[in-house]
């Protein structure tokens, strides 16, 4: 069983690494195609938005604390404060909301 587990771990690590590595070794040069460049320009925002909604709102025990954490992070970011502060304040907001209600 233990050997089998090491095999599983190796397969998981191998496949996951290959997915991450292949684009980096295949796309060695700057892509000139403007459509594809535009696509890649939008990729981070589409990805991050999809990973945040709805997951952030349902990550905490209560919807309310998820919403409060989300809003605090958004306001902190809109005011041009850094990642670290947004992360700290949002966590604090979730903790406070969960403690109060």
């Amino acid at each position, binding site marked *: 069983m233990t050997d089998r587990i090491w095999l599983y771990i190796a397969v*998981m*690590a191998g496949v996951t690494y290959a997915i991450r590595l292949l684009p*980096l070794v295949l796309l060695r040069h700057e892509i000139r195609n403007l459509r594809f460049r535009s696509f*890649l320009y939008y990729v981070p925002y589409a990805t991050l*938005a*999809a990973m945040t*909604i709805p997951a*952030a709102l349902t990550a905490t025990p209560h919807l309310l604390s998820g919403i409060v954490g989300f809003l605090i992070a958004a306001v902190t970011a809109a005011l041009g404060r850094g990642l670290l502060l947004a992360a700290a304040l949002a*966590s604090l907001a979730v*903790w406070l909301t969960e403690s109060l209600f």
Partner: protein
Amino acid sequence: MSRSALLFFRGLRDGLPIGAGYFAVSFAFGIQAVAVGLDAFQTFALSGSNLTSAGQFAGLGVIKVGGALAAMALTQLVINLRYCLMSCAISQKLAPGVPFWHRWFIAFGVTDEIFAVSVAAPGRLRPAYSYGLIAAAWPGWAGGSLLGAIAGDVLPDSVSNALSMALFAMFIAIVVPAARDDRRVLVVSLAAAALSAALAFAPWTAALSEGMRVVIVTLLIAGAAAWLFPLKDKEARHD
């Protein structure tokens, strides 16, 4: 201090919330891994070599039922396919002239959060900065899993819940300023959020894994945006 050292420390600093968030959420993985039959060292090796959340939990499911290795490979491929899109974006943000071998190491650290912080960094991406991010994030993930495997959940639930929001706050803090300054990014972000929520709750797509949902949303929304609002030639340059 050399330029690389400065970038490395900047990466460490920016990676701090990633490491803290990972640490808080990876206990759960360690606890579950032990329940499935892994020992603490295997749990540590698994988290340290995979550095991914959803894929590892799904992997435990395959181990638990004694699934085929091919089934394991396919599960990882489907859940982690989003990293392929992220690596495409990172390949274009890397500074030209960066020695090729760095890509083998940078690839290892392409996680949701490291990707998010990497693309938000001003100008071109430098390997030293990536290594700083990885050096901050990796111990949190691997260490948290190990501790979870050995000691169970050492943080009270209220603290883990609060810290799990730190990871989402980072995504939010990257998208919001960009959306404020670029109306196209605003449209893309709102559309992606709406589609993602719709797919998550619609009865016939709710069964999709979260990783697959992110891939579908990204292909559709970023693809549509590339047709509707292509960059102007000048903008398409990085610096």
